[in-house]
């Protein structure tokens, strides 16, 4: 993926670029808002990573200018400010996602992968299929290998989100935001317990597990190897 990093902290930018390269992406760097704007205008990127506080032109103004010009490259705002109203402001200015510094690189990586796919307008598929796991959003039924799985409403949404992003790492913070709509981290490992409950429902009677824990990052739902 072609990624533009707009970040004034040279060391942080270099580190980010290196880490993204290692993850198989193709990052470009801009050190201030004006340069970032020029680069985003002149070539096509898959994702923009924009720091909020930037010299010359701040990140929000840069993004809203791009949006006004009809450029809707998916973007993620990085910021030290993590309040709800900051987030709302960030998303209103044209950011597609918002990540508070300091973030774990794995969190950023997971979000970029999902963001790049979100580029297409989210089609309202009624049936989600991952391997032998099927989820019908209309009848609100989940089946694995034809066997019905009984889910609580929240578990249904959790599974839906995981299936929608099958094959990608999904972090705990993303689950809290997307499934529960909370933008803070509870001290207790509430998400882990929800996920392990879900896992016991979808993986228990099957030899091939689908829901995996990625240490230090989050979770991954993927089809078993037989498919």
């Amino acid at each position, binding site marked *: 993926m072609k990624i533009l990093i707009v970040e004034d902290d040279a060391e942080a930018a270099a580190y980010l670029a290196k880490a993204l390269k290692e993850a198989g992406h193709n990052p470009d760097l801009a050190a201030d808002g004006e340069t970032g704007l020029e680069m985003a205008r002149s070539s096509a990127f898959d994702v923009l990573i924009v720091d909020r506080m930037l010299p010359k032109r701040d990140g929000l103004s840069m993004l809203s200018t791009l949006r006004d010009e009809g450029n809707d490259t998916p973007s993620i705002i990085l910021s030290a400010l993590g309040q709800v109203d900051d987030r709302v402001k960030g998303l209103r200015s044209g950011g597609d996602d918002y990540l508070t510094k300091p973030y*774990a690189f794995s969190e950023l990586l997971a979000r970029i992968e999902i963001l790049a796919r979100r580029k297409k307008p989210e089609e309202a598929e009624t049936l989600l299929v991952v391997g032998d796991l099927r989820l019908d959003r209309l009848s609100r039924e989940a089946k694995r290998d034809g066997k019905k799985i009984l889910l609580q409403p929240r578990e249904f949404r959790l599974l839906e989100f995981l299936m929608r992003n099958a094959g990608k790492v999904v972090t705990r913070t993303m689950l809290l935001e997307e499934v529960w709509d*909370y933008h803070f981290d509870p001290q*207790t490992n509430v998400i882990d317990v929800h996920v392990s409950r879900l896992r016991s429902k979808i993986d228990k009677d099957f030899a091939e597990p689908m829901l995996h824990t990625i240490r230090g990052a989050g979770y991954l739902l993927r089809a078993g190897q037989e498919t």
Partner: protein
Amino acid sequence: MWARTRSLLRVTAVRLSIAYTLAFGVLAVILVFYMTGSAVDYLRQQFQNSINEEVLSLQQVYQTRGLNGLIRAMEQRSRAPGANLYLVADPSGNIIAGNVRTIDSSVLAKTGWNMHPFEYQGFGDNETQRETRAVARSFELPNGMRILIGQDIGEPERLRGTVRRALSFSLGMMLLVGFLIWYFVGRRALKRIDMVSKSTERILAGDQSERLPVTGVNDEFDRLSRRMNVMLDRISHLDKGLRNVSDSIAHDLKTPLTRLRNKADAALSSDLVNSKSREALGEVMADADQLIKTFNALLMISRVEAGSQITQLAELDMTELTQDVAELYEPVCEEERFTLNIEIASGLRVNGSRELLSQALTNLLDNAIKYGKTENAEDQQISIILCKNKKEVVVAVSDKGQGIAAEHFEKVKERFTRLDESRSLPGNGLGLALVDAIVKLHNGKFELGDAKPGLLAKITLPEFETHQKVKSTPNASKSG
């Protein structure tokens, strides 16, 4: 109406004007009484003078023409129009001559001045007519006969009556008009004060862009409001500066922290590390995460205390919020072997932020799970209760653990307070401080208590009322 009058009486302007009017009224009464009194004194003096003159001339008549001459002269004078009072009586008190028909005998018996007005009936008067009043001087002649010379004072008496009636009328009018003026002026003042206190309340709630109302009349309220607005501008300028500084600190310090954590993360995933350094790197990451969390929590508290999220407060379904949080924690409670008691009343609404109140509730549940453990796992229990108490919505979380000694209830709400019992457990001592800040932002109360055994944490929030975003001042708006 009565409530409004009572609140009017609490306005300083009204109190002052009432005091002034009362003082002025009393002074006016004293002045008028003094003036009418001295006018009456002057008139009496006049009466005495004219009576004295009369007496002098009659004395001459008596000396030159004797008793008969005197009587005749008095008869003559008494018939003149507008005459004084003349009376001649024999020693037994029978009236012989003059223009007086009846008179109190005690007046007649008294020799000398009779300045205290007495009542009499003259000849010219109709018999049924009421007696009029007079002052007089009487003498006893050597032969025992008595003569009385006096003057009718009906006219000045009537004058005095008129003046006093006019006075009481104008005093009455003054009081009435004064009352009306106080009422309207006072009500206006009260309205202005209400406006100011409403603005102040919004400012206190964190709306820093709010300013006191200036009507443009340029009265004392406007001048005061303008000054206060300048002050508020300055405060918000300073506050903004402070927030910029703390934002910058967050930006500047958290960036190297990010790097530290991410480098440890990157090192962990490289193939070169052995299991020992892997463990160390894991600890570095955990420590960095803890630092970051503490920093975030601290910043969060400052921001909530500054009320910067006030724009987020809106009508909020507290029932749904509590159910969501309870549902989020239900599996964890089960895994940690807590019995979860949930009693959630339906349809309760508050004016609040879902994000913040969820976080507050989450912090309380985190605490309950952390500190609510008991030796016998079967006793472990956490209760989440949402109920309505009069006009308030109460959310309570309680456990059956060790609890907190009553003397620490206030202390644990402060930042970085960790009681000795809890030092062995992970945490930063900011959880309850954040709850406290969040509840304060919502105009609520956060109380800790003894759940016997265990800790009871209770959040009380004002119930959401339609048409009521800011609490209005009592009385003024409720009367009618």
